C-alpha cells in the first residue's frame, strides 16, 4: 500500500522544536507538580499502560485456566479472584480513564484553542487519585484479592465472602472521584474556554464525544460511590440495608451499581467514538458526514444511557413491568450508536481513503463494534437475554464492544496523535502489522465465545463441560496472538521516542487546531489566542493554508 497522506518535513534538516512542553522544565518534581494538561496526559498514559498490562496478565491467566475443562491450573477461589481483578482493573483503571485522561486531557484545550483546562490543579489531583486507587487495587491483589466479580453483587459481597471487598471498593471509589473531576474539568473547559469563533458546531466531534462522556462521568459516578459506601457500612457495621434478614433488599445495591455501570460503558466508548470521527475524516480527506447528527447522537447516547440500567438485572428479580420498560428503552439507546456507524460509513463514501495504522484500527473498530453492538440487541431483548445472560455470550458481547471497539479506538488515537504528543512518527510498517495481528487475535479470542455462550457455557466458571474445550482452546490461542499484538506497540512506540522520524506540525495534513502548531506543542499551546474562522473538517481551508505557506516562502 503505497498511497499515504503522510507529509513529513525534510528529515535531513528537521529537528524537534527546542522549546516545547517536554523540554520546558526538567526534573521529577516538574512532572509530579505540573499543571500542564499535556504533561498530566503523559503521566496518565504511563500509568494506564502499566495497569493495562496487569489486567492483561490476569486475562492471560484466565485463558490459561480455560484451556482445559477442569479447574486444574488454580483453585476455583483463586480463579474467582483472577477474573474479578481483571474486571476491576480493566474497567476502573484502564477503560474508563483511557481516552479521556490521555488524549482528552492532551487535546481538548488545544482543540478549542485554550491554554489549558479550566482547573489544572484539579486535573493533577485527578491523576493522583487515579494512582492512589490503582495502588490500592494492587495492594488488594497482594493481600489476597477479592472474588465477588467486578460487580460486587450483594448479598455475596456483603455477607458471604471473607475477601478484600472493602479495599477494592475503596480503590474503585477513589478512582471514581478521579473520573468525576476529569469530567467536571472537561465540561467547564468546553463551555467556558473556547477560543473566539469556536462555536459549538465548529468543535471537533472528539470534543463533543468527550462532553457527552463527561456528563455521564459527573452524574453517574456518584451513585456507584454511594453504593460502595453502603456496602462498606453493610460489611462493617451490618446496617442491614441490603440484608433480607433485616428487611433490606440486595437488589437495591444492583440498582445503584448499574445506574452507574451502564452509563460507564458509554463513558468508556464515547471518547473512543470521538477518536474514530477524527481519524476517519483525516484518512478519507473528507469532512465527517452529518456532523450535527454525530454531535447530537453523542449527547443522545449520554442521555438515553441513563434510562436503561436494569437491562443488567433482567433475571435478578425486578418486576416484569420493569423488564418490559427497560427492554424497550434499551432498543432506543441502540439507535444513536447506529447513527454514528452509518455516518462514519458515509464519510468513507467517495473519500480518498488511505490505510495508515490509525485507519486500520478504525476499520477494525467499525466492524467489531457493530458486531458487539448488534449482539447487545439480543441481550436487550428480555426473552433471549434470559438464556444468554451470565453465559459467555455476554463476555463476548462486552469484549467485542470494549476491546474490539474501545481498545482499538484508543490505539487508533494513540497512533494518530503520537506525532503531536512526541514530535516523532512511529514506524508505519510494524504498526500496521501489529494492528492486523491484533485484529486477527481478537477475532480468534472472542468470536468462539459467542458460540460458547449460545451453547450454554456459563461465565465466571473455572471448569466447564468437556464438549466446550475445542472452542476454549481456539479462544486461548487467539489470546496469545492478541497479546503479541498489544505488546508490539509498546516496543515500537518507545523505540520511536528516540529513533522515530521527526513529524513536523501536521504529518497527517489534518484539520483541527492542534495540528496547526508545533509538535510537541508549547506549554501554553499557542503563541497567541487562535481565532476560529472556519468549520470543522474544512479541508479547503487547509489547502488555502498550505498555499499561503508556500507563497510566503
Amino acid at each position, binding site marked *: 500500500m503505497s498511497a499515504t497522506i503522510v507529509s513529513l518535513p525534510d528529515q535531513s534538516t528537521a529537528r524537534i522544536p527546542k522549546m516545547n512542553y517536554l523540554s520546558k522544565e526538567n526534573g521529577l518534581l516538574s512532572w509530579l507538580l505540573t499543571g500542564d494538561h499535556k504533561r498530566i496526559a503523559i503521566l496518565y498514559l504511563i500509568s494506564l499502560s502499566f495497569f493495562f498490562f496487569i489486567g492483561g496478565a490476569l486475562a492471560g491467566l484466565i485463558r490459561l485456566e480455560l484451556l482445559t475443562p477442569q479447574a486444574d491450573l488454580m483453585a476455583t477461589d483463586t480463579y474467582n479472584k483472577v477474573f474479578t481483578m481483571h474486571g476491576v482493573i480493566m474497567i476502573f483503571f484502564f477503560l474508563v480513564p483511557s481516552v479521556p485522561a490521555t488524549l482528552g486531557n492532551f487535546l481538548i484545550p488545544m482543540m478549542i484553542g485554550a491554554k489549558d483546562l479550566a482547573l489544572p490543579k484539579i486535573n493533577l489531583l485527578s491523576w493522583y487519585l487515579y494512582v492512589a486507587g490503582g495502588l490500592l487495587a494492587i495492594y488488594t491483589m497482594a493481600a489476597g484479592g477479592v472474588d465477588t466479580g467486578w460487580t460486587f453483587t450483594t448479598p455475596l459481597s456483603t455477607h458471604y465472602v471473607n475477601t478484600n471487598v472493602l479495599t477494592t471498593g475503596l480503590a474503585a471509589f477513589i478512582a471514581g472521584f478521579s473520573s468525576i473531576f476529569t469530567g467536571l474539568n472537561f465540561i467547564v473547559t468546553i463551555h467556558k474556554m473556547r477560543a473566539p469563533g469556536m462555536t459549538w458546531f465548529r468543535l471537533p466531534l472528539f470534543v463533543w464525544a468527550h462532553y457527552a462522556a463527561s456528563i455521564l462521568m459527573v452524574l453517574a459516578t456518584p451513585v456507584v460511590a*454511594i453504593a460502595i459506601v453502603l456496602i462498606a457500612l453493610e460489611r462493617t457495621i451490618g446496617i442491614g440495608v441490603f440484608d433480607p434478614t433485616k428487611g433490606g433488599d440486595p437488589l437495591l445495591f444492583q440498582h445503584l451499581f448499574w445506574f452507574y455501570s451502564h452509563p460507564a460503558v458509554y463513558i468508556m466508548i464515547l471518547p473512543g467514538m470521538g477518536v474514530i470521527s477524527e481519524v476517519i475524516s483525516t484518512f478519507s480527506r473528507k469532512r465527517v458526514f452529518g456532523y450535527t447528527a454525530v454531535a447530537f447522537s453523542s449527547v443522545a447516547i449520554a442521555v438515553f444511557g441513563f434510562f436503561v440500567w436494569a437491562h443488567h438485572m433482567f433475571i435478578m428479580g425486578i418486576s416484569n413491568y420493569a423488564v418490559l420498560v427497560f427492554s424497550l428503552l434499551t432498543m432506543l439507546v441502540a439507535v444513536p450508536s447506529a447513527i454514528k456507524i452509518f455516518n462514519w460509513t458515509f464519510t468513507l463514501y467517495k473519500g480518498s481513503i488511505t490505510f495508515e495504522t490509525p485507519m486500520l484500527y478504525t476499520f477494525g473498530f467499525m466492524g467489531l463494534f457493530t458486531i458487539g453492538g448488534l449482539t447487545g440487541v439480543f441481550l436487550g431483548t428480555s426473552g433471549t437475554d434470559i438464556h444468554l445472560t451470565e453465559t459467555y455470550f455476554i463476555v463476548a458481547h462486552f469484549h467485542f464492544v470494549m476491546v474490539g471497539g474501545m481498545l482499538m479506538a484508543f490505539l487508533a488515537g494513540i497512533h494518530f496523535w503520537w506525532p503531536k504528543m512526541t514530535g516523532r512518527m512511529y514506524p508505519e510498517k510494524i504498526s500496521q502489522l501489529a494492528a492486523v495481528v491484533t485484529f486477527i487475535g481478537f477475532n480468534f479470542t472472542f468470536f468462539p465465545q459467542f458460540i460458547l455462550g449460545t451453547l450454554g457455557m456459563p461465565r465466571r466458571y473455572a471448569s466447564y463441560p468437556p464438549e466446550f474445550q475445542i472452542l476454549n482452546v481456539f479462544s486461548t490461542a487467539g489470546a496469545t496472538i492478541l497479546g503479541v499484538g498489544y505488546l508490539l506497540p509498546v516496543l515500537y512506540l518507545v523505540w520511536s521516542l528516540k529513533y522515530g522520524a521527526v513529524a513536523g506540525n501536521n504529518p497527517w495534513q489534518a484539520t483541527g487546531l492542534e495540528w496547526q502548531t508545533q509538535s510537541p506543542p508549547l506549554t501554553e499551546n499557542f503563541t497567541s*489566542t487562535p481565532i476560529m474562522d472556519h468549520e470543522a473538517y474544512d479541508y479547503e481551508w487547509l489547502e488555502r493554508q498550505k498555499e499561503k505557506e508556500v507563497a510566503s516562502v
Partner: protein
Amino acid sequence: MSESTAIAHGAAEAAHQEHPAYLRHHFENVEQQADATNFAMWIFLLTEIMFFGGLFTAYLIYRNWYYPAFVSASHQLDVRWGTLNTLVLIFSSFTMAMGVWCAETRRRKGLVLCLGLTFVLGLAFLGIKTIEYGEKIEKNHVPGFHYSLNSFLDPEHDAAAKQYGDKPLPLDMARHTEVYFSLYFAMTGMHALHMIIGIGILGYMMFRAWGGAYTSGHVTFVENFGLYWHFVDIIWIYLFALLYLISRHP
C-alpha cells in the same frame, strides 16, 4: 538576551501589571475565571445531588415497604431538636449569603462577622446532632451495636413512643426499624461529614478574610463556598422533612 526577547519581556511585564495576582494564566480575564470556577462548583454540586440521591432512593423504597416501622422509629427522634437544627441551618444560610454580600461590597469586618456567625451556627448544628446521636446510643438504636427492639415491642414503657400513642409493632415489622436507623445514621452522618468539611473551610476563610483576601474584588472563593453551604442546607431541609416528620399525629 537578544533584542526581540527583551522587547517580548517588556511587553509581558506591562501586560502583567493589568492582571490581578489572582488571575490564573490560562484564563483570558477575571470574568472568565470567575465564571468558570462558579460553573465548576455547580457541576460539583450536581455530583453531590446524585451522591445523596442513592441514599434518598434507598430511603423512599424502605419507607414504602415498612411504613409502620418508619413511623414508630421516627417518633424516637426528638422533633424539637430537629426543628431547632433546621432553623440553625436556615440562619446559617442567611449569614452565609450576607457574607457573600459583604465580600461583594468590600466590607471586610462584616465578612469576617458573617463567616464567624456561619461557623458558630455550623458548630451549633453539630452540637445538637451530637446530643441526638447520644440519645440514640443510650437507647441502643444504633444498627449493628446491640440494636434493641424494646421501644417498638413495648411502647408503653418508652417515653417517646408513648407520647405519640404508638401501638406495639409485630416482631418482623419491629425488626425493620433497624433499616430506618441505618438510613438515619447513613444520611445524617453523610450530611454531618459535609458540614464538618464546610466548617473546616469556613475557618480557613475567616482567617483569609481577616487579611482582606476576599474584599478587594476577588469574591469567587466565598461565593462558591456559599453555594456549597446552601446545598448542604437544602439536603438537611429534605432530611428533616423525610426523617423527622413522617407522621406525628397521635
